[in-house]
């Protein structure tokens, strides 16, 4: 099988820079990371200098995602040799045990970290994700609530809690978590849109109105959010179709729904036009080359 560097004709520096970009963007393209990272560490480890340790960590987590336990174990052993007493490496050991579904041992590792350093948030979060993996949603919710009482500002924890509540169909509490997120990040269109979806799921006229408003807000923050556009259409149509509304409200909502439908059509036409133009360009290139060939031959 051809190596990455041959396939894409890149040198080791470009591979390293690509890994760094993925690290900074927090992108979870584990298969690519495993391919690129594995080659980098097996062939060019000495040239990487001190970067090699963070690349080991990144590749190890990606390997766990792809069930490549062999690669994960190699990376972990290198890290353990270099940093024998590190909490960060202990957490990685715990993560590997989690991937192998040895949850009790993993829990022991995390408890050891927490005994040493009670403020270590990473270990606490891993314990909660173990509970989630074992399907113990109720306990996970309880632990996460306790965690948030202490670390009120942790955005990803609030988000995780809202997801857990949605899984438990407790939409009221999920809405509360999303409200916290919206308050601290008022310009994030995704939180607005998720909040609107939760409100839509809760149902009832008031919630539908709220969801329509928040879908609009998400659209205002980001014009290209198609989900919000569809959401706006759906919520407006539902309100208009509901028998209990006054005539004015019905008229307004029909107008909103019509506008949304119009925008959706426009969006797909624009996309369609763009792809059509691209296709025509490609075809004209082909014909031109073909014609040149015929001319010369």
């Amino acid at each position, binding site marked *: 099988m051809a190596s990455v560097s041959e396939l894409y004709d890149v040198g080791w520096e470009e591979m390293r820079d690509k890994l760094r970009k993925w690290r900074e963007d927090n992108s979870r393209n584990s298969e690519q990371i495993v391919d690129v990272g594995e080659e980098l560490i097996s062939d060019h480890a000495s040239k990487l200098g001190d970067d090699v340790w963070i690349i080991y960590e990144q590749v190890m987590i990606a390997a766990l995602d792809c069930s490549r336990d062999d690669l994960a174990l190699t990376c972990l052993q290198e890290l353990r040799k270099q940093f024998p007493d590190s909490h960060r490496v202990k957490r990685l050991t715990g993560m590997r045990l989690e991937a192998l579904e040895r949850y009790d041992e993993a829990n022991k590792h995390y408890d050891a970290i927490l005994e040493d350093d009670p403020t270590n948030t990473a270990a606490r979060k891993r314990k909660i994700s173990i509970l989630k993996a074992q399907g113990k949603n109720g306990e996970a919710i309880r632990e996460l609530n306790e965690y948030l009482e*202490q670390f009120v*500002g942790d955005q990803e924890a609030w988000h995780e809690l809202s997801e857990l509540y949605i899984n438990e169909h407790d939409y009221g509490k999920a809405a509360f978590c999303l409200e916290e997120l919206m308050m601290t990040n008022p310009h994030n269109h995704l939180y607005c849109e998720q909040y609107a979806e939760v409100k839509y799921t809760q149902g009832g006229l008031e919630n539908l109105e709220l969801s329509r408003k928040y879908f609009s807000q998400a*659209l*205002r923050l980001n014009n290209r959010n198609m989900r919000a556009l569809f959401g706006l259409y759906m919520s407006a149509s539902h309100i208009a179709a509901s028998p209990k509304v006054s005539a004015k409200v019905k008229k307004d909502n029909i107008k909103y729904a019509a*506008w949304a439908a119009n*925008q959706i059509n426009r969006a797909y036409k624009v996309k369609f036009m763009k792809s059509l133009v691209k296709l025509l360009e490609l075809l004209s290139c082909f014909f031109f080359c073909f014609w040149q060939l015929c001319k010369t031959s």
Partner: protein
Amino acid sequence: MADPELLLDSSIRVWVVLPIVFITFFVGVLRHYVTQLLHSDKKVALEQPKTESDLCEVLLRSRVLRENGKFLPRQSFNMRKHYFNNAEAGFFKKVKRKVVPKNPMTDPSMVMDMMKGNLTNVLPMILVGGWINWVFSGFVITKVPFPLTLRFKPMLQRGIELLSLDASWVSSASWYFLNVFGLRSMYGLILGQDNAADQSRVMQDQMSGAAMAMPPDPNKAFKSEWEALEVVNHKWALENVEEDLMSRDLNFESSS
């Protein structure tokens, strides 16, 4: 009385003045490294975050509520406002923090730190000063460029029982103390800012520590936050969002 121009042996300069400068400097550097070795690692106990940053986080939440509450639906905003401000059960009203000032005398960790600070700073100063006084005694080192009164004579001219000698002529001990204070800026250059050889700053800290004000009173902070939250009105930012949105076509052209 005319100032008797004493001519000092130039070997004094070589064997006394310069050695004292070097001794002072190296003792200071040594002190810096010894302090770093003895510096106790202040572990962040979990209790601290629970009580103190707990307080900060509550204030932060309430501030965020005031600033960005207009993005929440009216009911949610009111619910949060009530949680904080309600007359009986509100957080700001109910939770009266007991203000525990960090008394330097009783707080054990601070006493240890103070003692260590004293030890590493004052003790070497006394020791070295005494040693220099003993070794380099019996003669004057240098003349300070400004005239001094007679009162300074016993202080600056230890070991020289000459009543008629101008007080500007000083002995080695005073030259040592001059160096201690003068080399502060040198320490800053060589050891970087915030070094432990900087004695005078330690002394300043001690003096200001004794007169330290109480830690920021959480009750006062709560009260002012409560008032600020009371006045806030919920002006929903989403009141006319649909009209705003639909006033023009959506822009799908932005680069992703």
